[in-house]
């Protein structure tokens, strides 16, 4: 490439540039516009009265004292919502959920009444003054007890239903059983296998806990019949559809506005009772109503993740070559099936559990049950149930390595899908589009001097010290997804982009996705810049306002780049096709005589004869166009991906454990990610730092614990572990590039890989520190106390 061409290309700041973020300018000045920053004239504040019990009947609710508090305007209960049929709402998991408790409460801190007052202090006073009389019922807390013959029935409202959207139910507390693969064939391989291993592996209940909690401002204009809701939503269009279904307001009169969102990580995908209560309250009062969740309510009631009680089994030959996989999980979905999943995939993408390995036979099964805990099952910085799946396989391959006595890196090499096998269809039906696993692993092992580490570990073990080396070579599945397999409430999970190029060559693009810190305003502009040859600086990106953006399923499951990014590239290509016709017309040559050169079409063999995209943009708005061509330079793309994308990576974690305190120190964490084409390396690295830190949090400290009566035992930031700068390790990042063959620019998505791949890497490191003592598994979280207990039970810390 000539110096001049390179200069023009650099000026675009397109794909591959570590372009500084456009969104920072407002945030560093404190000028972000988060939902709690919104203040509308006459706005009331809503506070929720919550249940102290996990399971109880409501005998009565007395509002009278609350209504006497000066400034309290109204107190809404299920009975008030009933006449407008808004006391229940549909969930994203084909179930229904009580907006305000209807005669019963099903989990602790459930929403019972909504107090409206002139400000947040008065609303809290009012909520304190509401008197609710309960009759406590026995609670089901442990999902393993939910299906017992004598277990209390949690959902009496659907006790007579033999199906809640995902196949037959076998017990009033059973939600669904979902399976994939060849059971008989898999069982047969297990029956005759040289080696089999089995482990019970828990992904405990955790919470994504973004720094900003959930909230909204609902504003109903009675005269126009229009509802506007400013809210913390990762999926504004899906919310609009749910609100339309629920309220009967035409969808065209509902506007959902995302604004700036203080992190989501899956917490902000579902529709929560607080949003609906605020909407109803605004419809009833005719003034705007704000509801902002407290931190304790956030951790306790909206969008928990995981609670997957798994059993992993592998069958292999004596060299550790895996012959079959059999995984199952008992899924605790809480009191309502508000699990976010595609309709046809009630256990999400759990069947990616064959990982990066060539496994001839596989079978997996998930049973979901109701318990008296908060509803949810969101994907915490992952695609639906991918963390659970990857955790199982990445743990089990280590268990197998220990059983057959093969090194943990070597056993992966022996089982990897080989580069020449791609596209590779797994035994559970996914077609992995691309991958290059051996290269990634070898690069990482070399970088950390794996052999040296193993030698050091052997020496440490000989002197009684605990050092662990964890490996994770994961394959993710992201970018939901092809509409033939993925829909929510019947709506396909496509995404969209609408680009308008202005006469002077700047452009605005609107997408159906929704940034929560990922930097979309920066990166989407880079994709369009490269496609159109217009500087990214002059490309404005807008998301989140359903009145402006085309319909899309939002940002979760790393779907923005795979689906939204693809839509952006393809919309730009439609524009480019038209631009080429205009260029040919202006240059008086045939289209075939033109070639693309960074930011212009030029005549082959005569580079001086050229029209830049900017010149073409102007021409598109004049009369000088080919005969019959429409004016303007716009395009919209609704992109339905042909397949998911499969980012992968190889991670190594080294830990040193103090056997006297149980303290686990992460000495080194080396993460190599392959997310295909890299749009903005700076942002990718930032996403990986953040994802690894969240993986560290989950593996080393997070859990939402309960007692036997369903009472929370740790739901504030006093107890719930969010790592600070002191305990967070330093991250080393690396990459390989294996583009996705079916994505328009070869990109795969990256934000979730470090979380998904990181969690097993930490656990593998901790377990590896004890492997020489015969330990094959330890459940998360690996807090100092739990690790110390482990040391104690093994007797390794006697002085």
């Amino acid at each position, binding site marked *: 490439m000539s110096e001049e061409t390179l200069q023009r290309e650099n000026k675009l700041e397109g794909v591959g540039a570590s372009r*500084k*973020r456009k*969104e*920072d*300018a*407002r*945030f*560093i*000045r*404190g*000028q*972000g516009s*988060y939902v*709690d*920053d919104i*203040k509308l004239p006459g706005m009331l504040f809503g506070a929720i009265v919550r249940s102290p019990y996990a399971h109880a009947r409501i005998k009565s609710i007395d509002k009278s004292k609350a209504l006497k508090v*000066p400034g309290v305007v109204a107190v809404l209960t299920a009975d008030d919502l009933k006449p407008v049929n808004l006391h229940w709402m549909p969930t994203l998991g084909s179930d229904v959920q009580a907006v305000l408790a209807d005669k019963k409460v099903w989990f602790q801190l459930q929403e019972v009444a909504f107090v409206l007052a002139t*400000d*947040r*202090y008065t609303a809290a006073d009012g909520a304190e003054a509401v008197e609710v009389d309960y009759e406590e019922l026995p609670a089901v807390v442990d999902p393993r007890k939910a299906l017992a013959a004598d277990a209390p029935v949690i959902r009496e409202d659907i006790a007579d239903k033999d199906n809640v959207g995902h196949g037959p139910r076998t017990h009033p507390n059973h939600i669904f059983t979902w399976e994939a693969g060849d059971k008989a064939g898999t069982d047969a391989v297990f029956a005759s296998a040289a080696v089999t291993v089995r482990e019970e592996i828990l992904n405990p209940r955790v919470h994504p*806990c*973004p*720094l*900003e*909690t959930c909230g909204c401002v609902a504003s109903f204009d009675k005269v126009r019949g229009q509802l506007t809701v400013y809210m913390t939503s990762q999926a504004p269009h899906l919310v609009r559809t749910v609100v339309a279904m629920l309220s009967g307001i035409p969808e065209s009169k509902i506007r959902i506005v995302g604004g*700036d*969102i*203080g*992190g989501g*990580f899956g917490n902000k995908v579902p529709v929560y009772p607080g949003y609906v209560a605020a909407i109803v309250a605004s419809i009833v009062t005719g003034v705007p109503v704000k509801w*902002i969740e*407290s*931190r304790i309510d956030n951790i306790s009631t909206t969008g928990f993740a995981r609670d997957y009680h798994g059993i992993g089994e592998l069958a292999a030959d004596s060299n550790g070559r895996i012959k079959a996989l059999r995984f199952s999980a008992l899924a605790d979905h809480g009191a309502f099936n508000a699990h976010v999943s595609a309709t046809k995939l009630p256990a999400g993408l759990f069947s990616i559990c064959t990982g990066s390995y060539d496994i001839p036979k596989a079978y997996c099964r998930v049973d979901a049950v109701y318990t008296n805990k908060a509803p949810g099952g969101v994907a915490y910085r992952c695609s639906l149930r991918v963390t659970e799946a990857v955790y199982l396989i990445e743990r089990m391959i280590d268990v197998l390595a220990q059983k057959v006595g093969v090194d943990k890196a070597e056993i992966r090499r022996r089982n990897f899908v080989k580069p020449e096998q791609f596209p590779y269809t797994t035994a559970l039906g996914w077609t992995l589009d691309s991958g290059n696993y051996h290269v990634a692993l070898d690069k990482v092992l070399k970088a950390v001097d794996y052999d040296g580490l193993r030698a050091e570990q052997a020496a440490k073990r000989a002197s009684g010290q605990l050092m662990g080396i964890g490996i994770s070579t994961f394959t993710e599945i992201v970018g939901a997804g092809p509409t033939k397999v993925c829909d929510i409430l019947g709506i396909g999970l496509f995404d969209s982009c609408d680009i308008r190029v202005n006469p002077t060559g700047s452009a605005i693009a609107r997408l159906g996705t929704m940034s*929560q*810190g*990922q*930097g979309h305003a920066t990166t989407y502009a880079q994709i369009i810049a490269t496609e159109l040859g217009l500087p990214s600086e002059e490309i404005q990106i807008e998301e989140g306002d359903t009145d402006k953006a085309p319909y899309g399923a939002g940002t979760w499951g790393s779907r923005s780049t795979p689906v939204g990014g693809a839509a952006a590239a393809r919309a730009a290509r439609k524009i480019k096709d038209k631009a080429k016709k205009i260029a040919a017309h202006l240059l008086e040559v045939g289209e075939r005589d033109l070639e693309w050169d960074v930011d212009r079409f030029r005549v082959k063999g005569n580079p001086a004869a050229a029209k830049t995209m900017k010149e073409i943009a102007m021409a598109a708005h004049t009369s000088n166009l080919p005969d019959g061509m429409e004016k303007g330079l716009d395009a919209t793309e609704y992109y339905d991906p042909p397949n998911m994308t499969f980012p992968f990576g190889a991670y190594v974690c080294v830990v040193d454990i103090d056997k006297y305190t149980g303290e686990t120190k992460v000495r080194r964490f080396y993460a190599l990610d392959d997310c295909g084409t890299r749009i903005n390396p*700076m*942002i990718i*690295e*930032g*996403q990986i*730092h*953040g*994802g*690894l*830190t*969240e993986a560290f949090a989950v593996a080393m400290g997070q859990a939402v614990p309960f007692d036997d009566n369903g009472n929370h035992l740790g739901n*504030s*930031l*006093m107890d719930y572990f*969010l790592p*600070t*700068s*002191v305990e*967070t390790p*330093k*991250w080393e990042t690396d990459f390989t590039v294996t583009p996705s063959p079916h994505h328009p620019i070869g990109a795969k998505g990256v934000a979730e890989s470090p979380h998904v791949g990181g969690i097993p890497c930490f656990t593998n490191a901790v377990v590896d520190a004890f492997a020489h003592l015969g330990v094959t598994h330890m459940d998360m979280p690996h807090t100092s106390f739990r690790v110390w207990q482990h040391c104690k039970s093994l007797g390794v810390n006697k002085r």
Partner: protein
Amino acid sequence: MAKKQAVSFKLNGKDVDVVVEPRELLIHTLREKLQHTGPHIGCETSHCGACTVDLNAMSVKSCTVLTVQCEGACVLTIEGFAQSGELHALQESFHLDHALQCGYCTPGMITRAYRLLKENPNPTEEEIRYWMAGNLCRCTGYQNIVKAVQSAARKLSSAAAA
């Protein structure tokens, strides 16, 4: 409801007067009465640091301070950092070093880092990590925040030397 009280203090160099209930927290006064929505609320229990402001030359979590305690005080929030359109070195380095993602922790982080660099203009990485531990970030993993504080420290000390 207890009787409201008048409170006067300096906010980013300007005199402000408010009338508040004795129980009102500074973060709510700043955000709801004084339109300073830069400091955020992440917990209201003093754990996250999103609400950090500088009060009489000390970092405080403004969700744990009563407004009535601020009579006569000097309060600095993120809104007071840029001077006549010029960004503060910390604001600039947070941008250049990609030390923010969702931006929710950023005002508190910058305000805390400001106090750190006042007390210790050349902190080591360990000192930065220790000093910033009261401010949680869920997005960045802190590595670039540490980097940004180091860059700002360098910039400020070379400016001071010049």
